[in-house]
């Protein structure tokens, strides 16, 4: 069965790009969230195998959403996917339980490598 992915990014362009990369490589994109609040809500409903999470978003940022999802489900697999690659952001995300940290712009292979490790 195809692994189920929830995409979180406020930019429509990024959601479309990630969805194309993932669906072309055999993953099922079960949901798309445009901010942290939507991501937490969709996580509860959909129980995806992996979540991609942007950081800079309106309503609720990705670090906060990461923490909320991990407190609901300590086994949640969340990959950060953001333009904010500074060291303290990476550290905060990893300490909060993020499984990987992808800095935008990225090559499709970088995303597939991260997801395949988690969805194996």
């Amino acid at each position, binding site marked *: 069965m195809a692994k189920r992915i929830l995409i979180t990014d*406020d*930019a*429509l*362009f*990024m959601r*479309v790009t990630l969805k194309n990369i993932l669906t072309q490589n055999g993953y099922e994109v079960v949901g798309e969230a445009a901010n942290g609040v939507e991501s937490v809500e969709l996580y509860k409903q959909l129980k995806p195998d992996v979540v991609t999470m942007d950081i*800079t*978003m*309106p309503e609720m940022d990705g670090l906060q959403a990461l923490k909320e999802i991990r407190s609901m489900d300590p086994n949640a697999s969340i990959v950060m996917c*953001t*333009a*904010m*690659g*500074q*060291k*303290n952001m990476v550290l905060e995300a990893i300490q909060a339980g993020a499984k990987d940290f992808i*800095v*935008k*712009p990225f*090559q499709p292979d970088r995303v597939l490598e991260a997801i395949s490790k988690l969805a194996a």
Partner: protein
Amino acid sequence: MMKVQYVSPFAEAAVSVFEMLVGLTPERGQLAARPQLFTTQQVNIVCGITGPVEGLVIYGTSMNSALKIASKMIGMPVTQFDQLVASAIGELGNMITGNSASLLAAQGFGCDITPPTIIRGTNVKITTVDIPALVIPLNLKELGTFEVNVSLQERKKIAA
């Protein structure tokens, strides 16, 4: 006077983001100073910076260039500035600003950034707290030109 050390990270980040995203290396033009932040470009991406260094950055380009850049990003030719194109162009600004913030953090200025806002229309003048702007034009060859307007200052320390 605004410090040039705040501007170089933006030029550096813009060059590497364009290399990765559209596969060409922009040429950096002559740095220019303006007393205020304004833009005469048709498509402008505004990003805010908050933290020990704060202010605004505006990326400006022509409609024609914006469509060419978006076509490369999306992977197929686009001719209308629709929602997907606006989102791609906004994300371009977000990537450059995010990568710049990482470079600023490495200099000891750990900043946060705001989601991008797109303003279309020429002669946009943005009034902020009198921070002068530094402008770096980037030559994107067949894609046209792309201006980076940086208006940042160190946060004033509040007296105890």
